[in-house]
């Protein structure tokens, strides 16, 4: 039998417990509701307002590489939050902060460039970031290598070639860099350089497969060089004689070329007298 005062105390406790439950439920409900609202910013976004990584380094009191890690992790979250539409505005800034804090941390350069190319669609920025990486880490061949890939994908063979050459020069770079350089050289029609590089690869490589590839490319370069020569000769013939030559030997007889070039296998080039087209006897990549 509870007395009146005991009953009052009991009901007071009950009230407090009820309040606790309600507030707890309230907290959870409000949190869930907030999470459903798409974010314009994510926490830590004030990192954007830091003027320069140089000064941030002083504020880290010897923990700069840790802070670099944390900013990098934050950046990954930031750039995968698709609801923030203007997030690429600060891409260069944020990744340069990370670079200042820990210049030898290679991942951010690569990922920054990746984001720049694929999401921000800003190729120049990607090159800038990778250049920064190489400047601070001259021994890391991966930076110009990736830059070459991005350039190649964008069909900017001149730039790709430049980057592949940089890659080649770094000790420890993979052999494929050289091959890519040679191939890019071909694309920009620097046939001489391309030929020399492929030849070097062909002569120096130990890898059988690489040698085979080099051989194929050498064929291609020679074929192109030769067909260009022949095409030019055909054009000159046409100018001089107002007609297409009947056969390639005509060009020699006309004195436009000293001798008929042959492909790498020693075969003659195929000439179509009706159209003036010149083709190599083999398809270079099927050899």
């Amino acid at each position, binding site marked *: 039998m509870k007395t009146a005062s005991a009953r009052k105390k009991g009901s007071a406790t009950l009230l407090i417990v009820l309040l606790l439950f309600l507030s707890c439920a309230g907290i959870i409900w409000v949190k869930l509701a907030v999470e459903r609202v798409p974010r314009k910013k994510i926490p830590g976004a004030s990192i954007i307002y830091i003027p320069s990584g140089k000064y941030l380094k002083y504020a880290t009191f010897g*923990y700069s590489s840790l802070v670099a890690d944390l900013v990098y992790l934050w950046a990954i979250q930031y750039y995968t939050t698709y609801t923030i539409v203007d997030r690429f505005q600060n891409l260069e800034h944020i990744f340069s902060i990370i670079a200042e804090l820990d210049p030898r941390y290679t991942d951010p350069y690569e990922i920054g460039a990746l984001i720049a190319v694929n999401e921000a669609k800003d190729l120049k920025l990607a090159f800038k970031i990778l250049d920064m990486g190489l400047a601070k880490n001259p021994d890391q061949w991966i930076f110009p290598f990736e830059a070459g890939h991005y350039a190649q994908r964008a069909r900017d063979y001149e730039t790709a070639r430049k980057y592949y050459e940089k890659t080649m020069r770094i000790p420890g770079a993979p052999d494929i860099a050289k091959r890519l350089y040679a191939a890019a050289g071909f694309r920009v029609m620097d046939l001489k350089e391309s030929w020399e590089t492929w030849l070097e690869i062909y002569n120096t490589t130990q890898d059988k497969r690489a040698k085979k590839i080099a051989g194929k490319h050498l064929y291609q370069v020679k074929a192109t060089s030769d067909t260009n020569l022949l095409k030019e000769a055909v054009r000159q013939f046409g100018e001089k004689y107002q007609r297409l030559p009947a056969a390639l030997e005509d060009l020699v007889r006309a004195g436009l070329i000293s001798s008929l070039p042959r492909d790498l296998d020693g075969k003659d080039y195929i000439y179509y007298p009706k159209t003036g087209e010149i083709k190599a006897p083999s398809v270079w990549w099927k050899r």
Partner: protein
Amino acid sequence: MKIQTIALNTFKEAIRDRILYLLFFFAAAALAFSRLLAVLAVGDRVKIIKDVGLASISIFGVLMAILIGTGLVYKEIDKKTIYTLLSKPIQRWQFLLGKFFGLVLTLFIMTLAMGLIFLVIVLLHTGKLEGRMLLAILFIFIELVLITAVSILFSCFSTPILSSIFSLSFYLIGHLSWGLETLIQKTRSGAARMALRGVSAILPDLENFNFKTEIVHGLAIDPRFYFFSALYGLVYTLFILALAVLIFKKRDFV
């Protein structure tokens, strides 16, 4: 012999201090957390683990050194346990050194424990036992020894709160040496520059003990650098302890 007695007693006292276990718990939690954090990374995950791990050992070690060190001498004076102690045939400097070595011993054990946990976590993640990390941890420990000396110095004449602030300031200033260097370079030659150079020579350069970044990146370090850093630590600690002994020697215990 007397120093040893005080040292062991101080060790017993420190090892029973709840703050120590609280900080150790947080350090272990941070080390475990590093594994979780690494999941967020794209690319090299081990770097995150190593960075967080070394930073935790460093931060929590410094906190232990400061929070316990600043109370060591002050508590004895405040609680008057020092009265009976100093009436015995023990010199004041022996008492001070005993306190110092007692805390250094405690920190050594704590650092060792945290270091082992760290190495195990790295081992779990990479399958390799990275002995080089121990080198970074060793120099973190040397820095802790210096910070301990500083905490004890302040503990001789100041309350724990003020001493903690002073010791923390010492730590922060010690890591701003880069900033001072830049400032010196930007100042024109003359009296101001000389003064700054003088100041930078005396101010602690705690960056000397910071090999964390280099070791995590696996960069080579000139062994002379190790030797000189250790020597710097030793000499500076000696300087601070001498200062503490001087101040403590002439103090009236009211």
